[in-house]
Structures are given as structure tokens and as C-alpha cells.
């Protein structure tokens, strides 16, 4: 993994990393990926990927309204609120 890639991945993951952290993580990911090379030797020709082992049939439930949490209970965890709403940084200029 080159230094450019760790920057790109950190940007995609929305993670600030300082230079020390970047170097350390890059070395760690290189070591991890090196041990993962055994996967490249497995013959997967024609094998469908398995994304999920659960019951593949979804069972819709009745669309019945129920009491969810109160506004106060939800907003008590917010880092910033105003007038009973989430307050967030400006998205559009």
C-alpha cells in the first residue's frame, strides 16, 4: 500500500490521521494484507459470493404504527440542538 493510498482511504473513511498515525497504520495494514495473501490462491471460479448466511426470505410485518421514542429521549444524545431539532454545521453555502 503506497502513502497515497492511505491518504485516499482515510479521506473516504472520513478519518483524520496525523502523519505518525498514517505511517503506523500503513505498516500495520501492509502486515495484515501480507498474511491475507492465502486468499489469492483459493480457486473461486464460478463460486457465487455469500454475503449473508441468514434466511434469505424477508417476511414483511404489518405496517402498524407504534410508540417510538420521544423527541426528548432522542435529542438528549445530540451534541447540539436548537428548538427541538438537531443543530448541525451548514451543508450548503
Amino acid at each position: 500500500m503506497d502513502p497515497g493510498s492511505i491518504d485516499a482511504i482515510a479521506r473516504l473513511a472520513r478519518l483524520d490521521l496525523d502523519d505518525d498515525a498514517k505511517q503506523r497504520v500503513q505498516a500495520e495494514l501492509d502486515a495484515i494484507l501480507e498474511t491475507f495473501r492465502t486468499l489469492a490462491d483459493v480457486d473461486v471460479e464460478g463460486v457465487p459470493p455469500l454475503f449473508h448466511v441468514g434466511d434469505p426470505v424477508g417476511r414483511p410485518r404489518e405496517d402498524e404504527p407504534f410508540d417510538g421514542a420521544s423527541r426528548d429521549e432522542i435529542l438528549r444524545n445530540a451534541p447540539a440542538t436548537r428548538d427541538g431539532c438537531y443543530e448541525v454545521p451548514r451543508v450548503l453555502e
Partner: protein
Amino acid sequence: MSGPSPAFRSAVALRDDALAGKLRVAEIVEETLARVARTEPTIDAFLHVDADGARARAEELDRRVAAGEASGRLFGVPIAVKDNICTRSMPTTCGSRMLEGYLPPYDAHVVERLLAEGAVLIGKTNCDEFGMGSSTENSAFKPTRNPHDPTRVPGGSSGGSAAAVAAGVVPLALGTDTGGSIRQPASLCGVVGFKPTYGAVSRRGLVAFASSLDQIGPFGASVLDVAHLASALAGHDPHDSTSAAFEPPDYASLLSRSVDGLRLGVHEDFLEKIKDAGVKERLRAAVRQLRDAGARIVRLDDLDFLTRVGIPTYYLVATAEASANLARYDGMRYGPREEAADLAATYARTRGARFGDEVRRRILLGTFALRAGHKDAYYERACKVRRLVQRAFAAAFERVDLMIGGTSPVAAFPLGRNVTDPVTMYRCDALTVPASLAGLPAASVPCGRTAEGLPVGLQILGPPRADAEVLSCASAFEQLSGRFGDLAPLAVEAAAEGDDA
């Protein structure tokens, strides 16, 4: 060989006494809180103890007894809950600074079930941050220590729950298992741990790490207690579309089966190739005991594949899912916010500052595995290999009823030893991740101790939905070994002090 610890009364015994009015729930709760106070300075199993809530609950349950209205499979039983399971009455931090102080607006489905069965919630247990780790050293708040030897780790990620049971604090606890996070700490702490079939237990209210792998399950000091809790947890939840439609049987009523004629598969990677001689010797002895009791031990020679591909397949699938699941922590809806110049910078600063090293490592690995241009070579390839893992197990289970082997290739290791070496830490999961990838039910049962006095766990795996069979075999082995829980000396000391008081 150790019998039941004096500190330990089974959940079943406590429940029966509470229901019969022989023991007030208030007494059970006071005794439990006293044990918390005696053991926490040594093991640090809890992130939050709800003494007031537990006392209020005890009063309520005692009033039900007085009114002749008491019922419930877990009536009066104190239970600890891993801190990645949402509780309305207690903070739920997942061991992360990202969720410091988070108070969920609802109870997880499993918590609703515990309360409906009459349980008393004692507190929230420590864990590796978001369940990512094998030693509980990745908790942002503190490491938990193994009650058998406090210089060593309890395993992880559900290390607090395993340690609380091993120390005789609570008879039962909830954990979660994504790649071994119930079974491995159960093994390292000398208690029983059970990961149900994927989908058997609702994940609603479990903070997601890797959704196709995460499963909630019980810890206990005996298989019977674990079976009771497993039955209470399992069943369809219309609010979790991945919860299975099957209604499980009452596992506890099916435990008496012997192992006579049972075909138990063993692969050398799960036994003979384990390098730790002390661990291997205990496992060999366990296999001999099962054979002598009439089980047919069948060598499975063609499963090298499972341990060769298990770690990379698991870590690619789990981190890819984690990178998506943990995208929700952006400092907008919960947790603290680290303000920066603009929105994107605020996200990045908050996430960079609040996630710990291992979580950041896994988010980056998962992002790498899913990145355009890499996805075919990493994530999708891992999912194809996952299919082959499932097929390999399916073929094995045509020849055997269950598989047995080690839970962990090592006993409890010293705190700090592996924490800076992710590759070595990941290898601790080599024997547990195969069952996770295939969604299989699997238990870890104590099978003795190494020369250093450290517990070793026997793992029992079954085909999908063979939860009752796995627990039944675990119970039969427990009877053979005469080892009903292998609680730590700390539990015995705590009980002795309590008797003196």
C-alpha cells in the same frame, strides 16, 4: 477437579428460591452488589453498575411474589449485559469514547426479553471498542482482568461479561459474538459461552459491528443456566428482518442426552496442531473422555481449508461491514462533536479523535477492501471463499453430528503482550471465525486448566439450527468432566469473605 464454587449458586436455583419466596430478590441483589464491590477493584468487569435500578427492580419483583403473581424463566436472576447492547436505563458506550454517555431511547429486543422473564439487570460490562478485539484491552475506558490471574486478559471482546461470571459476581451475562467474542473469553475465563445460530436471536438494539456475523448469546457457569438464558433470548422478532422464522425448542429440557453413538468430528488444526502444549493436552483429554463415554470420534482430514482461509476471509468481510456500519458516527446525532472548518472536516476530526486505534485500523482496512478497483480482489473474493467455508462445513456435517476442538489456540495471555501486534491478536481467532462465517451454533465449555492454572475451553460446533444438539453435547461433556463451571479463586475468596461477614 473443582466442584461448584461456594460463591456460585446457579441461576436456576436462585430463580426457584425467589419464585418460592424462600429468598427475597432484594437479598440476591444486595449480595450481588456486595460481590461487585469486592471484585471490581481486581477485575474491572463493569463499565456501569446500576445499583439503584437493581434495587428498585428487586422491590418490584418481591411485591409480585407477595401478590402471588411471580413468574418468569429468569425470575430474580441478576444478569450483566455487554455494553454494546442498548439499555434504556443505563448508558451504552460500546467501550468507545464515540458513545461516551450515550443513553439509548429504547431497550434491545433481548433486554425486553430478559425483563419479561423477570431478570434483574445489574450493569453493563466492559468490552473491546465496538466488539473489535480479542482481549478487552481495546476498551477506551479500561482493560478488564482475568479473575483466574489478574495479570492476564479475560479474552474478548465480551471480556467483562466472561470475567463477571468467572468471578462469581453474576450467574449469567449477555455477550455478543462476531468472530468468537463469546466463545474465546468463555474459554479464557473458564465459563460456558454459547453463540447461537445466526438469526436465532434478534439483533435489534445490538450496536452493529458486522451485521452478517453479529450474534447475541449467553455466558454462564453451567450449561443448564446457559440453556435457560439461550431459550429466553431466541425466537423471531418482526423488527429484525434477519432474525430467523424458527421458534426454538426449550433447550434446557433437552440436555439430558448422553454422547453414546454421537458422531463427533475432529480436525487436527483444531487439536493436534495447536502449539500450546498445555492447551492441547487438556483438549486431548476431553476427546478421550467423550470417546470413553461412547462418542464416535471421526477424523475430518479435508478441512485444512477452514483454518487456512478463516482469518483473512473473516477480517475482510467483518471490516468491510464495519466500515459501512460505523459511518453513522459522525458527531451529528450522538456522541461529542469536534468542530472544524467545514462539515467534512468536522466529520473527519470527530471520527479521528473519538475512535480508538483498532477501530480506526478496521475501518481503514474495510474501506480498502471495498474501494473501487479493490473490491473484486478483496471483499468479493472473501465472500466467495465464505461460500466455500459454508460448503466445507455442510459436507462435514453429512459425516458427523457435531464437531469438537479447541476454542482458542492459547490460554489467557498477559495484558499488553499482543496489543501492539494486530496480526498476532487476529490469530487468536483462528478456531472461532470459521463457525462465524457459516453462521453455525457453537459453544465453549471448560475442559480443565493448564499447568499454570489457566482455563481451557472445548469448542462444540453444530450445523445451522442445531443449537439444542450443541448445548446437549456440552451438557453431557460437563457431566463427564464433573466441572460445573470453573470459577476463579477470586470467586471463592469473595464468597468466603461474604460468609465471614
